[in-house]
């Protein structure tokens, strides 16, 4: 697979000011004989407001795709652009700042902080960025309402169900109005009905707020909500 053959997957307006674009991204883990190619010349464009699902078996490179797209890991070669900035050209410190301002992560099993209430989980990203003010509090309340948890705003993670936790994780990811939303196996802890609800909510928020969203999952049942679906096999995207 070459970079040119992946051009059809780059949405027309993703290369400009918004969205996410990966070009010829290769990630090799380890070295010598034990080297593994986790991502093999991956090209992918996601426009603002577009919801892309990437499915594949475990070990196919889905998590590596999120790690590279989210600036958690530098690719061996290739480039990542986020909201018009070349993420792969930034220093470690700048990439950390880009993560906190432009990228929203929704983690597997939501990954909330045990000691914080729902409302505080949402305020945390803005506190980290030094922007915790009245506007942040208003936005937190608005997002909590958007994910239907107003009655749970003061609860801590251990008091929430799996589905509620996942919705908090989504709301937290949206707090900074990120250009890109990266969602890692959002339904691994949920039953079928809750899974469908959670993914539907992600799709709604993506369209409403104009984020470029990538969701990786091995659960083929939840792909209907996505605008596009790609399959990942052995580090290659089809």
């Amino acid at each position, binding site marked *: 697979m070459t970079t040119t053959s992946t051009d059809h997957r780059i949405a027309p307006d993703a290369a400009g000011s918004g969205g996410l674009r990966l070009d010829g991204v290769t990630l090799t883990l380890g070295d010598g004989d034990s080297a593994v190619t986790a991502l093999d010349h991956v090209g992918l464009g996601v426009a603002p407001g577009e919801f892309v699902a990437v499915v594949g078996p475990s070990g196919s490179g889905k998590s590596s795709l*999120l*790690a590279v797209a989210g600036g*958690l890991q530098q690719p061996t070669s290739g480039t990542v652009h986020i909201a018009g900035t070349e993420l792969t050209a930034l220093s470690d410190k700048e990439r950390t700042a880009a993560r906190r301002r432009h990228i929203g992560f929704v*983690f597997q099993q939501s990954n909330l*902080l045990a*000691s914080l209430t729902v409302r*505080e989980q949402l305020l945390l990203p803005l506190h*980290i960025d030094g922007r*915790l003010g009245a506007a942040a509090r208003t936005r937190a309340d608005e997002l909590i309402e958007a994910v239907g948890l107003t009655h749970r705003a003061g609860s801590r993670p251990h008091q929430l169900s799996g589905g509620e936790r996942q919705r908090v994780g989504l709301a937290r990811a949206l707090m900074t109005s990120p250009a890109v939303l990266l969602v890692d196996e959002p339904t691994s802890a949920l039953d079928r009905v809750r899974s469908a609800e959670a993914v539907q909510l992600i799709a709604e928020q993506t369209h409403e707020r104009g984020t470029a969203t990538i969701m990786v999952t091995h659960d083929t049942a939840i792909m209907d909500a996505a605008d596009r679906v790609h399959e990942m096999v052995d580090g290659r995207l089809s």
Partner: protein
Amino acid sequence: MFLALRDLRFARGRFALMGAVVALIAVLGVLLSGLASGLADAGISGLRALPVTHMAFDEKATSEQFSRSTVEQGDWQAWSKAPGVERAEPFGNTLTNAQVTRGAKKGEQVNLAVFGMAPDSSLAPSPSRGTGLEEGSAGIVITREIADLGVEVGDVLTADKSEVRLKVVGLVDETVSYGHIGVAYADLDTWRHLHYGLPGDLPEAARRQATAVALTLEPGADVAVVEKATATRADTKETTFGASPGYTAESSTMALIKGFLYAISALVVGAFFTVWTVQRKAEIALLKALGAPTGYILRDALAQVVAVLVGATAVGTAVGLALGSVMIGKAPFSLSAPAIATSSGLLIGLGTVGAVVAVRRITAVDPLTALGATR
């Protein structure tokens, strides 16, 4: 402190246990400081109260100088003429026993640390009750520890061996001790009777002797010449504390116990925060993935450490002070603000060092572990 405070509240049971350990160590720190100051007071407060900078001893007396040294009249005369010497006065020191032979406590045995001095010298006491010393009158001025035994101004004590009758003429109402024995001030001849255990007339040679030359030196005075000429050695007043019976052993034992206490505390705090940080690894990875700089997480963790240490030390110190105030008078115990401040400061400081070593591992956490199901 956004996360630190909320973690403190959420895991309050665990933090309370660790805080209790630090608080108990702080209690022990206050009590040990009080005991150390109390022992120091009992051991050397008499020397500390003397208005001198140095003491010159017979150069042959290298330890327990106060019982081994003898100086001659010629020595203090030579010292007082030497350059850089403001004052040089004879000082006598001896430990003796006496019996109350007149007074309410008749028959009572009393230990005395007798300081001998010329009544007109700068060393002479200023009694809060009664009168001062007078040459040749065999009057003594007692201090609080002796008064606490029931001895009063106007009582008469009779010294063992010499059978010298000592009339209590004055009282200094302060704890003034030497070697855990209350100080009694006497004129030089009375001191000589007690020191040599001689009644009646003193031999001529004894009348020209004292234990040491009490000196007030100008800062930076070079006294090598007069030291050589008189075969004496001038020690600073603080150095002479070590010559007081038991003082060095007591203070080094206390310092050793306190040192171990601080080391244990630092290790306990370090161990707690090591476990705590390891437990938080997933949350730290999450924070980093959310874009928190390592500095943000470290600051948060250290603020938590300092909050716990300061809080626990404050509680422990307060309890220690309450317990200590009960002990005053019942044991050699005194509360000194600088000693307690040092003790608390060390506890917080060394605890922080222990915790810093522990929370440093925050820097090594890889944000990548926030992805996937590796937890």
